[in-house]
């Protein structure tokens, strides 16, 4: 089944309208006392979850908004926010 995503402005749309923006790793770490290794980990290291993960997406062919949503990487379907997520 083809991926569909729900843009907060345009609503549910074909996944081909969007560009993947990577895992949503939370807010940028505080630069004070940040070591190069920690920064490298934040930028490059991913969890590659087999299951539901929070991701950034860009509505490239639509409104141009960046947003985050949840996708099950096993079924490649957008899912509701898991209850145990922060």
């Amino acid at each position, binding site marked *: 089944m083809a991926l569909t995503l729900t843009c907060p*402005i345009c609503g549910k749309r074909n996944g081909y309208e969007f560009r993947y923006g990577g895992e949503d790793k939370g807010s940028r770490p505080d630069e004070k006392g940040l070591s190069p290794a920690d920064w490298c980990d934040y930028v490059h290291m991913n969890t590659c979850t087999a299951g539901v993960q929070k991701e950034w997406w860009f509505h490239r062919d639509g*409104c141009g908004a960046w947003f985050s949503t949840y996708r099950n990487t096993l079924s490649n379907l957008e899912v509701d926010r898991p209850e145990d997520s922060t």
Partner: protein
Amino acid sequence: MTDIQRYSPVTFESSVKESEVRDNWKIVLAYQNEGPGPWLVDLGHKTRWDLQDSQIDDPSQSGLSVPSSPGTCFLAEKKLINRMNRTQTAIWHLGIEETIIPDFNGFTDVTESTVFLALFGPDAFHVAEKLTALDLMDPARTTPFLLQGPLCHVPCQIVILERHADMSGGFIMTCSRGYADSMVQAVLDSGREFGLRPAGETRFADWVRKVQNQTSN
């Protein structure tokens, strides 16, 4: 000094009945045999601005009141203001008056970087539904409203100005300039069975006047 010449990316094969030169654009006012509709009008010469700013909701910054939520539009004094997202608004001038871009660095004149077309008249939305999966007849929306998404697989901004249950009404749309030839060919080809024909600016101006009167009433 030689005047510059400005060219629309769109050309129609129909014979020109009446035209004029305005602000260095050659503008077709009417074509021969425009038919009973629907009509496709090239609006490439109409001024379009893009406004981007983090304080877009504050009219004291840009000098412009923009709709508060993305996807909504204002149509007043032949000027259409379309809120695109949190930080961006498109301003389309539909009249023939000369425009002066405001002295604010959030504005960019994008007139010559995009295609600008109007498709309106009877069966306009029958033509549209052959071209896009977007729901132009969404009953949850009130005209005028903005849809952003693919039409003929090309990312477009589409503003629905008028629509009726019999699929008449119309919309105006923009996309990147390079798509002009293939976009016009696809739209005219899709509309052939409904009698879609190119029309001049006069017919568009009459339609916008009618829509604006309905909106203000």
